[in-house]
């Protein structure tokens, strides 16, 4: 039996989602834009899903645009806002998801000025720092509400006013926050918000962008008039219905489930701390999504731990994978000021709806055992493990035999 602890990368399908998908498959739904009966049936299903998503975040259904996922939502928000709003400056932080950082880099190459607000050592972005970065007219502020790597939840509401004063649209990437904490767009006072389906137990390939009523952004995909003209193409009805079902399941027990998962995380952390001297939790102690533990394991390479754990049936993650499949240290941890060595010794453990108490007891035992073995076999405090800086004088001297 494998123990899956990588919910921040994607949650397993919820049973409610499977059931909703099966029902829709049996219903012979057609293109929701079609005039006939089958089209109308599809349209009802699509609009019901939209209402479910809207309700979860306190939005109006007309403010929900279905997309192919978090990455598309972030790209639509950023490219759409930049196209519609000419002010040069865009404010973000260095700990954002690649689907925020990469489109912003592209905009920077086109002449926009992207300001990266630095997080503190725990991954928190100070609203004052965001305000300071908004001392010139700006088109967009784009911030992750909950950080995917360390779980820090930002004081987003306090960033809304400085953003508005600078004339900027305020975009929140809530892919890692929705379903874990209460997320209300009116309280957060954002203009745009990203949601991702597969973080919630729907399949990958569906997501949504909240676009506040009255906010104008340019579409990224051009074609038919679907999704208020912001996302052309026949909607992914199966995905939307799955997302609606996932959202429904999440909303039904958000507080209890969040408390349950939080208690399991705390239990795991306590067990690991007792077994692993020097274990460090990265990220803030409070104001965090309770399912995420980012841990620095002393004296080992995270890469070795990751593989050893996988061979023992415990599935966690580290940083991001390069195109060839090798893991790289997390850019979030580096931006938070962790050394390269510590970042290379860090793993992310993330829990979710199907994590059980017994999984946590077993995972703690396996993680502690694997850590002891890896540290003994392959200590990582050698010079070579320091990463980038190893091509120095010492190694040359040694190489000179």
């Amino acid at each position: 039996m494998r123990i899956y602890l990588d919910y921040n990368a994607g949650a397993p399908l919820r049973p409610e989602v499977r059931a909703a998908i099966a029902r829709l498959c049996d219903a012979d739904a057609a293109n929701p834009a079609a005039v006939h009966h089958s089209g109308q049936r599809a349209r009802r299903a699509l609009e019901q899903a939209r209402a479910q998503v809207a309700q979860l975040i306190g939005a109006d259904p007309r403010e929900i645009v279905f997309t192919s996922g978090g990455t598309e939502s972030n790209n639509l928000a950023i490219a759409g806002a930049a196209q519609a709003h000419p002010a040069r400056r865009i404010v973000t932080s260095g700990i954002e998801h690649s689907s925020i950082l990469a489109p912003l880099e592209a905009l920077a190459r086109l002449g926009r000025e992207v300001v990266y607000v630095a997080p503190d050592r725990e991954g928190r972005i100070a609203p004052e720092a965001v305000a300071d970065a908004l001392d010139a007219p700006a088109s967009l502020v784009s911030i992750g509400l909950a950080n995917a790597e360390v779980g820090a939840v930002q004081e987003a509401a306090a960033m809304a006013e400085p953003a508005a004063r600078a004339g900027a649209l305020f975009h929140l990437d809530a892919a890692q926050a929705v379903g874990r904490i209460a997320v209300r767009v009116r309280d957060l006072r954002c203009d745009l918000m990203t949601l991702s389906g597969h973080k919630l137990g729907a399949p990958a390939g569906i997501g949504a962008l909240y676009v506040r009523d009255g906010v104008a952004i340019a579409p990224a995909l051009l074609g038919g008039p679907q999704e208020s003209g912001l996302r052309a193409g026949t909607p992914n009805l199966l995905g939307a219905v799955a997302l609606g079902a996932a959202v429904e399941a999440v909303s039904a027990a958000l507080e209890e489930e969040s408390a349950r998962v939080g208690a399991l995380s705390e239990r795991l952390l306590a067990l690991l701390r007792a077994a692993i001297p020097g274990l460090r939790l990265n990220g803030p102690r409070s104001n965090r999504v309770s399912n995420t533990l980012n841990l620095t394991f002393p004296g080992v390479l995270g890469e070795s731990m990751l593989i050893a754990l996988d061979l023992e049936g415990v599935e966690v993650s580290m940083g991001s994978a390069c195109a060839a499949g090798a893991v790289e240290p997390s850019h979030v941890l580096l931006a938070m000021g962790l050394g390269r060595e510590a970042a290379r010794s860090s793993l992310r453990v993330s829990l979710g709806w199907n994590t059980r108490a017994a999984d946590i007891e077993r995972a703690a035992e396996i993680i502690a055992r694997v850590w002891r073995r890896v540290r003994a076999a392959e200590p990582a405090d050698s010079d070579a493990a320091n990463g980038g800086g190893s091509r120095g004088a010492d190694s040359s001297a040694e190489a000179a035999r």
Partner: protein
Amino acid sequence: MSARVLVAMSGGVDSAVAAAILRERGYDVVGVAMRLAPEPAAGARRRASCCSADDFEDARRVAERMDFPFYVIDMRAEFGARVIDNFVAEYLAARTPNPCVMCNREIKFARLFERAAALEADYVATGHYARIERDALGRYHLLRAADPAKDQSYFLFTLGQQELKRALFPLGAMTKGEVRARARALGLANADKPESQEICFVPDGDYARFVERAAPAERLRRGRIVDSAGHTLATHAGVHRFTVGQRRGLGVSAPAPLYVREIRAQSGEVVVAPRAGLGAAGLLACDIRLVDPAAAGAAPIAIDARIRYRHPTLPATLALEEPGRARVTFVNREGPAVTPGQACVFYRGDEVVGGGFIERAL
């Protein structure tokens, strides 16, 4: 529970076939591919060893087909410090290094063994063409591959008893043709692609340019090209551009072809001579490793010496001197040009006795 083996997979067919064979034999195979070479500079041409989704394609395919786990691991820092830095330092010191030997010694059969222990693997396997035999006394012997055209035992002389005990070379008894047939049966797309002869981190083969980019300009040893009598024939841009025995690219015109006979790191002088003046009577080697030190005596023994990969072996006498050093005397007094920095590997029949790095010609 079956023994676990960590198979170093390069992305080529050899290691993919090696992994498949071990899986068929019932081992608990864990495939790993190592990222070794640094990222190419922006704009450099695409190459096999940089990071892309196509890398390790054959390795992935065989892992999927044979249903074993496969991981890409990042050894760039270690490879940079222990192989590339050494490669550059050797060229700057007027020697001609063999980074594949270094990679085997420092990465595949050192760091990868540590990783194997971390992953509770009992063995490390590669797609090298060489054989390991265990005798009745429990000693391990490193032998040439069954296919002489593919034999890679030269690159493995640094392995001692501890390494051989835990190493597996499943291709050692096979011919290249047999391996290619297996690769085709496994559906590997590249079963028939020619192997790369280049050093993986210098894909264009231009070692001089690589050294010039990696080393600070003040460490490049410029100097003169001189004849045996010390007359200056030309100047040159650095000793790293030369290797003993080299004929092309000297920038010197002479009635008879001239070859590099000696490179003097201190003075920066490159000594050239006609072919007749090139041959050595033997060599001194350092950093000697013996496959089975317990079996080696003090008395000189008759061996066949291989002074570079693909060079035919030469009958010689091996005398071990002070620890870690050896004198190799060719039976045929006028031997070939000997290139400092290259590995000299000692064979007795099919067996690798050991080897070292060539310090100088005798």
